[in-house]
């Protein structure tokens, strides 16, 4: 984003020629607040589940979350199909999906524990162990790679002082390599929790980290 002449409809701090605001691009104003109990059941399985604030020991499926789970159940012909939405919800609350969490989900849905583990471990977005407040996933697949993604990844590791996959001492950052994020025209694309940062250059990295530190409870 620093000196590239042509800007993208993603967001990496400024959009240059592109005259919409970040909120416009991300759609945050249009979306507004989504209540924890779920709005219309049709959209109840669609909440972000990578958030900065995590409560690893919080109860699952109580209060508004119970209400949302019931709405979700009503959208599928059987309990098994509720498994991914339920795991998403569990990660939204706790920040990662531990074996204990998998067992709790299994019990809630009447599925075997071993089955739930088999499914949960198939999917990369379930954090099997705790991650930092900000999980930084740098795409290094072909389109980003052609445009310097390896350097961007190295810069994130350097500026957070971490090794790949490890969490920084202050608990703020975990940096990992990601596969194609479907933003190939806007390299390098970096997913940080639920947001995309696009057109990221090596030089942008310190500014992005500062911004993350200054944001309270951003997801």
């Amino acid at each position, binding site marked *: 984003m620093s000196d590239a002449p042509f800007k993208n409809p993603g967001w990496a701090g400024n959009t240059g020629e592109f005259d919409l605001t970040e909120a416009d691009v991300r759609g945050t104003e249009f979306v507004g607040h989504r209540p924890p109990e779920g709005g219309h059941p049709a959209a109840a399985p669609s909440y972000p589940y990578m958030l900065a604030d995590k409560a690893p020991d919080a109860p699952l499926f109580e209060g508004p979350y119970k209400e949302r789970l019931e709405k979700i159940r009503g959208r599928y012909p059987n309990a098994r199909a509720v498994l991914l939405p339920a795991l*998403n919800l569990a990660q939204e609350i706790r920040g990662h999906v531990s074996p204990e969490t998998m067992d709790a989900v299994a019990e809630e849905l009447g599925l075997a524990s071993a089955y739930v583990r088999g499914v949960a471990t198939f999917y990369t977005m379930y954090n099997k162990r705790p991650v930092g407040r900000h999980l930084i996933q740098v795409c290094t697949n072909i389109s980003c790679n052609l445009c310097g993604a390896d350097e961007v990844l190295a810069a994130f590791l350097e500026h957070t002082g971490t090794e790949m996959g490890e969490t920084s001492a202050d608990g703020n950052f975990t940096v990992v390599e990601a596969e194609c994020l479907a933003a190939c025209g806007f390299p390098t694309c970096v997913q940080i929790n639920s947001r995309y940062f696009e057109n990221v250059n090596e030089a942008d990295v310190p500014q992005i980290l500062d911004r993350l530190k200054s944001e309270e409870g951003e997801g």
Partner: protein
Amino acid sequence: MAYPYRHEKEVRLLSEHFGDLEARTVEGWKARGGYEGLARALEIGRERVVEEVKTSGLRGRGGAGFPTGLKWSFMPKDQTRPHYLLCNADESEPGTFKDRELIRWTPHQLLEGCLIGAYAIGASHCYIYLRGEFFEATQVLARALEDAYDANLAGKDVLGSGVDLDVTLHVGAGAYICGEETGLMNSLEGRRGEPRIKPPFPAAVGAFGMPTTINNVETLCAVPGIVKNGGDWYRQWGTEKSPGTKLFCVSGHVNKPGNYELPLGFPLMELIEDVCGGVRDGNALKAVIPGGSSVPIMTAEECSACSLDYEGVVECGSMLGCASVIVMDETADIVKQVRRMAYFYAHESCGQCTPCREGTAWATKILERIEDGRGTEEDLDTLLQIGDQMTGTTICVLSDSLAAPVRSSIEKFRDEYLALIRRGERVGAA
């Protein structure tokens, strides 16, 4: 400027309202002619909707290019069991970035396409399977869907027609293979996203064991215009066998990467040179992958006379796939990029089939060795042999999808491999 990816040669049937914030609201979408296709569909009845889509010649935009109307006509006519429409919004083929744009800028276009598609195949429920990473686009779609329910465009008795049409958003959890249609069905059902053996085909036994049709986001987004204006209208663009327009996702070493909507049959070099402002820094073109990482790589020479329609790209030695054009200039390091692709497929293989599980892993190890300067010339033969063993031998085509770039790159860019093997020289830096 609201949306920077614009070019006068575009024909924007689907992308006209990108960057136009009002298009996200029901009222705004209606003011732009939206939901007229849905109203017309409910008026003319499902058989005629299928006929219009057949007439249009619309082909699936998810990669395979299968005619959409024909696919819909495979669904059983009797209504004794539930039917399902699945919208494939798992977009994860490296190089592809169109579906996210369609969802976040024109959510109602997609919802209208889903509603019409569900109606046409006799389904009362459509699940939109969104890749987990698309949180932001998904929130926009969620809001639009709630608005659509409020406006009686979805739910019970849609627009007073007596027809019930539900749409549910289903969010995945990170696995490329869930984009494969039967892997997606397993994932939707709460299983590991492992592809299923076909037959039975989804139209007979699909999601939840019921007759199912699955379509890509862009395919469904093209449907409202076709139903509203008629199938023949759509044929005024594109070629006889590949009618209509397509979003071309251009990435890599061009001056203006982005999504450009062009009639099918558009010349590849004109896309690169004119629409995308040419190769970056005035560099020479080295190679193009025209359809996402799963298709054979093309040399600059092969590109010169290539037209971008399903047939035209095959004639030039590759495939159109999802029209994800990855451009590499003279600085590109082919071996490194093929190694990166191999790593991707090894990471994403679901592991059910031995040729795929072992082939992707071994290809990655051998390519890493070559890249590190420890390779031998025999390694190239071994790679070609592995590629042969990986082709046509597995449940789904993920396996073939790695064999294609490996084989084509060795055949077309052997010199680059040999430079590394014989002299430890890297040809490119990027």
